[in-house]
């Protein structure tokens, strides 16, 4: 996958964010990638990374999306997209699959978000709009289950509203569950002393602090 733009200079595109996340996934980790943009992270994991992908519908060591003759209706990912299996794959039923999450066996999950709060609350399942049909899937189980929860999102909505906020206004998925937030403009750690800016892609920490309604701690402080 070709990066959208050179990293470290300007705002990242979604493929660059995915590549940035992939760099932080340790060798041999057991990882769940949420549906939507987080699935792009898989494209940036080197074949020798030894990362084992978990899919909530009952599989470990899931392979890439299936093409052509490899499409098998019995083999899909959490987004119901046909996928493949890698050597060493294992299948299990739903109660076991979610026991792996809640039981703290997954090293990392990567989730999309509508909002993340400064204390790590996550909102990603429901806009709360009166006509919206709520649908949670496995989001709440993943949010509270994985050892580390990474969020992948743009830092601002299309209308310019911050998505990293002092308190979420959308219905919550989980409380104090997010560890790190990867965005197009910066990477943030959610820590007990506040939101730490790990790195930025273009703006300065002061620029970001001016646009976000919460205190930011520069990395190294």
């Amino acid at each position, binding site marked *: 996958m070709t990066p959208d733009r050179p990293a470290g200079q300007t705002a990242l595109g979604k493929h660059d964010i995915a590549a940035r996340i992939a760099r932080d996934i340790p060798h041999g980790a057991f990882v769940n990638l949420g549906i939507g943009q987080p699935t792009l992270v898989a494209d940036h994991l080197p074949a020798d990374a030894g990362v084992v992908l978990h*899919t*909530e*519908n*009952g*599989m470990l060591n899931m392979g890439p999306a299936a093409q052509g003759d490899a499409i*098998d*209706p*019995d*083999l*899909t990912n959490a987004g*119901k997209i046909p996928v493949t*299996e890698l050597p060493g794959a294992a*299948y*299990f*039923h*739903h*109660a076991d*699959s*979610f*026991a792996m*999450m*809640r039981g703290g066996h997954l090293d990392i999950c990567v989730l999309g978000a509508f909002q993340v709060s400064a204390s790590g609350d996550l909102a990603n399942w*429901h806009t709360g709009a009166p*006509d919206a*049909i*709520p*649908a*949670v*899937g*496995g*989001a*709440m*189980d993943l949010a*509270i*289950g994985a050892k580390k929860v990474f969020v992948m999102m743009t830092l601002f909505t299309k209308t310019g509203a911050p998505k990293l906020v002092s308190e979420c206004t959308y*219905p*919550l*998925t*989980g*409380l104090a569950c997010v560890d790190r937030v990867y965005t197009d403009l910066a990477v943030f750690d959610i820590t007990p002393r506040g939101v730490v800016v790990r790195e930025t892609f273009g703006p300065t920490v002061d620029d970001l602090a001016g646009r976000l309604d919460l205190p930011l701690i520069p990395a190294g402080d």
Partner: protein
Amino acid sequence: MAVQLCADADEAVAGVQDGSTVLIGGFGMAGMPVELIDALIRQGATDLTVVSNNAGNGDTGLAALLAKGRVRKVVCSFPRQSDSYVFDELYRAGKIELEVVPQGSLAERMRAAGAGIGAFFCPTGAGTLLAEGKEIRVIDGRTHVLEYPIKGDVALIGAHRADRMGNLVYRKTARNFGPVMATAATTVIAQVREVVDTGALDPESVVTPSIYVDRVVQEASA
């Protein structure tokens, strides 16, 4: 009781009562027992509560059952999908009840029913809308939500193979909810692609032992 090997799907779903709670396997279409659902539509049971991960895709399977107006309430984790238009229309028209349950809690509540567990404390959903009105308890410093079992009157599941005793094996991610639902209903009905002789399944590979299975039918399209 020994498993009943049924001649067709209509025989397999005979006797399902109006007002039943029906557990329906599948994750999207993978593992969905479409022939059993079609037979249930012909059988006519109505006022059903359906427990399934999704609320139907396209026009077949669970979506067809919903479209016939046979379902009073859906208990599921993820009703909203690009092709869930049958459910969406019923829901927006106020013609169907919805209980959204986190996917892992949905599975575990059925596992609890099948394992004789009265209820369990689970951290999923604590502090969210889906825990409203539920008892909570702080255990080891973490907030947990009290979740009760979901027991079915009937489970309709799809499996890959059965032997003539009713032992089941599944295939790939089509396994999903099947093994859990098979433990959690009074009458468990399995649609399989192939029925093999007793002894032809490796006992080490059996996923759902025959004790859980009441009726088996081989797919007509198999």
